[in-house]
């Protein structure tokens, strides 16, 4: 049997791109398949209009001018759920997105394309809480540290600078009695700058005589506030300020001359054989070209699934791989919530020396409060359309109500806001500060991904995704909401709304192909040899609440090393 590459990786997102670079550096030939488009590459000058080339393997194909044209920072163009450039769907934007069944109010926020969802992630790159790993996972936190360090150097990860919204958060957190942390490994509660995969601002940014458009073409963050809408700022693709994998790891992978990236290629089936010695083992991938609809097969010695916590289990289930009751199950997603305060200009002048918070300035999230055992709180600021929709439109509770102050002195309002009240809130947009709640929710077998028995798309039966929080998860979230409201209150917020996000918000999706249940501690499937996983799905749990990408990237680095030792 002729092979097309040593290793085929499915998915060029947060994990797959890391594995590609690490394997390429070891001299292993990699073919990296990606379902979506590739922005900032000369072989696809109009990636949403035309099919373009089949693949690219040269760093010379990367083009910062194209990236600047394509990542417009306009929130509708980039992030509209149905047809945004950073949506879950085919590159061709005339076509609908790929539907997933979320059988409640909620949605799955993922993006296709080289870089995957890291294209619009906020680049928050904290490590896991050690207490969520040690004596829980099949490996120890200590074993992860060298891999964390390698990823932190490569991305790189830096403490976020302070802008107005971080300063207001620190002020409120300090007044609430929390202490400051300056560690990468928090073991007790406290606040700190977010460890972000964002380059520090260029020194010329603060020079009043510099031209901001020119500064945006230099190395370093410009604090433009559009991490969530895609960052185009930098002198070349590999030196863009925010470090999604299409910026950080893909250029390094191409530099090895061992990695070929093939966008617009949707993996529909894992191909296997029954080997006399190894048993069932992966031999390749069946795919569908998203432009032409043509199917094909590609063969390799090893296959890595890195399609994300929804698609990796879907691909397993649609490939008739051996039955395993944990495939797709045990989903955690940090059971998010969102709390927003509005401030008086006079108070802001006193605290910040300026009359507005301006939530659209600075990194989308530049600070955090860590509480190992409970979860995290992050101040965050997004552009107005996203802010309105996430703060006032997206609630478990369609019946807005005003809190009775005697029941709860901290937040005044909860649930959806419409009509004149919505207009009133939005007129204060510049004076708002929001806090995101990430709960240390625990894996539960009833939560996760199954295959819809009735609905198919062009890639087979579609995934159906469900989640119900446990009583303990709800209690943790409630505590975090109170803490966040308290911080806003102490910082002087005049009115506080808790949005009460629906439980079916799927963003930090983890642990649907859990280590110890579906894969071993090298992330190789127990039941299918030569099949590895390097996305969030192999996490044993939700790592305690911190944002999962860095941990996935550390594990992808480790898995690349392990599989190279075993099979090459």
């Amino acid at each position, binding site marked *: 049997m002729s092979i097309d590459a040593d290793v085929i990786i499915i998915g060029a997102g947060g994990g797959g791109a890391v594995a590609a670079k690490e394997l390429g550096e070891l001299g292993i030939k990699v073919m990296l398949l990606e379902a979506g488009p590739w922005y900032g590459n000369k072989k696809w000058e109009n990636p949403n209009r035309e099919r373009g080339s089949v693949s690219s393997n040269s760093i010379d194909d990367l083009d910062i001018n194209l990236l600047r044209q394509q990542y417009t920072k306009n929130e509708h163009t980039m992030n509209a759920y149905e047809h945004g450039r950073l949506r879950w769907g085919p590159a061709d*934007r005339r076509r609908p997105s790929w539907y997933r069944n979320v059988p409640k109010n909620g949605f799955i926020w993922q993006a296709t394309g080289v870089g995957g969802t890291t294209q619009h992630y906020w680049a928050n790159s904290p490590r896991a809480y050690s207490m969520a790993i040690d004596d829980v996972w099949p490996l120890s936190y200590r074993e992860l540290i060298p891999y964390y360090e390698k990823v932190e150097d490569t991305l790189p990860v830096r403490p976020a600078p302070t802008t107005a919204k971080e300063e207001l958060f620190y002020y409120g957190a300090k007044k609430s009695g929390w202490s400051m942390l300056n560690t990468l490994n928090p073991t007790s509660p406290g606040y700190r700058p977010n460890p972000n995969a964002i380059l520090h601002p260029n020194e010329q940014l603060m020079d009043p005589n510099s031209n901001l458009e020119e500064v945006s073409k230099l190395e370093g963050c410009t604090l*433009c*506030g559009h991490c969530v809408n895609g960052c185009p700022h930098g002198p070349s693709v590999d030196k863009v300020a925010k470090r999604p994998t299409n910026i950080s790891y893909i250029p390094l992978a191409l530099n090895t001359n061992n990695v070929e990236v093939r966008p617009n290629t949707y993996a529909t089936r894992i191909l296997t054989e029954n080997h006399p010695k190894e048993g069932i083992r992966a031999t390749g991938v069946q795919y569908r070209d998203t432009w032409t609809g043509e199917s094909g097969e590609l063969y390799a010695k090893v296959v890595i699934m890195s399609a994300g916590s929804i698609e990796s289990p879907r691909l397993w289930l649609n490939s008739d791989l051996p039955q395993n009751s944990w495939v797709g199950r045990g989903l955690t997603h940090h059971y998010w919530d969102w709390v927003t305060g509005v401030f008086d200009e006079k108070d802001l002048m006193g605290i910040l020396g300026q009359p507005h918070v301006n939530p659209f300035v600075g990194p989308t999230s530049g600070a955090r409060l860590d509480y190992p055992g409970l979860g995290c709180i992050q101040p965050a600021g997004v552009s107005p359309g996203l802010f309105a929709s996430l703060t006032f*439109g997206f609630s478990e509770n369609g019946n807005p109500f005003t809190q009775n102050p005697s029941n709860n002195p901290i937040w005044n309002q909860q649930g959806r806001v419409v009509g004149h009240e919505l207009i009133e809130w939005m007129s204060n947009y510049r004076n708002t500060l929001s806090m995101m709640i990430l709960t240390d929710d625990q894996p539960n077998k009833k939560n996760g991904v199954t295959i819809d028995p009735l609905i198919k798309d062009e890639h087979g039966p579609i995934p159906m995704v469900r989640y119900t929080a446990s009583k303990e998860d709800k209690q943790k979230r409630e505590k975090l909401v109170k803490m966040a409201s308290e911080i806003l209150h102490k910082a002087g917020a005049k009115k506080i709304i808790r949005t009460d996000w629906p439980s079916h918000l799927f963003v930090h999706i983890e642990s649907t192909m859990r280590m110890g249940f579906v894969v071993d501690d090298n992330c190789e499937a127990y039941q299918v040899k030569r099949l590895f996983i390097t996305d969030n799905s192999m996490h044993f749990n939700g790592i305690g609440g911190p944002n999962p990408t860095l941990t996935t990237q550390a594990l992808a680095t480790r898995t690349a090393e392990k599989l190279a030792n075993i099979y090459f």
Partner: protein
Amino acid sequence: MDLLVNHAIKLRKITLEIGGNVGMDKIEGESHSNQSHRGQLFEQIKSMMSNLVSTEHSSQPVSHNNSFSVHMSDKANSFHTKATFMAFVDAMIPSTLGALDLRLDEYIVWTLDNYVSIQGEWGVKNVQLSSQTAKILDIAAFQLISSENVKVPPDFSTYPDGGPFSALSPDDRFEAIRILEDLQVDLEVLPSPYRNNSGLIKNIITSIHQNVMFGYYSEWFSFGSTRLAYPENRRIERQNFIWDSLNYPGPSFGYRAVRGFLVDKFSE
């Protein structure tokens, strides 16, 4: 009482439209059940209507009009859908310069008709959800009216093409949405694909609220005459006066906003 009768006659017309059009946008493989379901739905709503008008009139005129209503044109259907979402977006972000002025009704219809795609016999196709969604809003509104829980009497003059939902006052529209979300309507009478599908109802109701806000406060209206074109053919044609009103400067190259660093370098 005359007023009530007029409302009832208007309601009846709309009800017939609902009954007559259920199943027109059916999903693959469900056509058979829709056919019989249409009859059931019609009978049920007819019976509710009869109860409403029975104090003054017999229910006879209702069944009298049955035959032609089944042939309601797509055009009337789309006028009805449009009127329903005009009423919805106007309640969400009222004038002046509200969501209706910015034609968010068009945006909602567009997104609903491009939200779900599935594999059909000859390839992938969109499930057109806008007209079915308008119908479930009407059914909820109808139930609200017939249970006499409206705060303000329905007024059919504002949206002549609309049904019960668009005849409600803005507060009552949200009350109708509430009973729909709380599943206090009979899910068996809803048109496909909402029939007995509480998950999809909740999903879409939240989504249309979010989309009015996202459409209104993002750059969508600034696309001007290209706002309903295929996404890659849209162009910013005018200033975003909503952003101006929020004092949001729009995408910027950067801000001179560094206040320092709380931590220069983390310790291990």
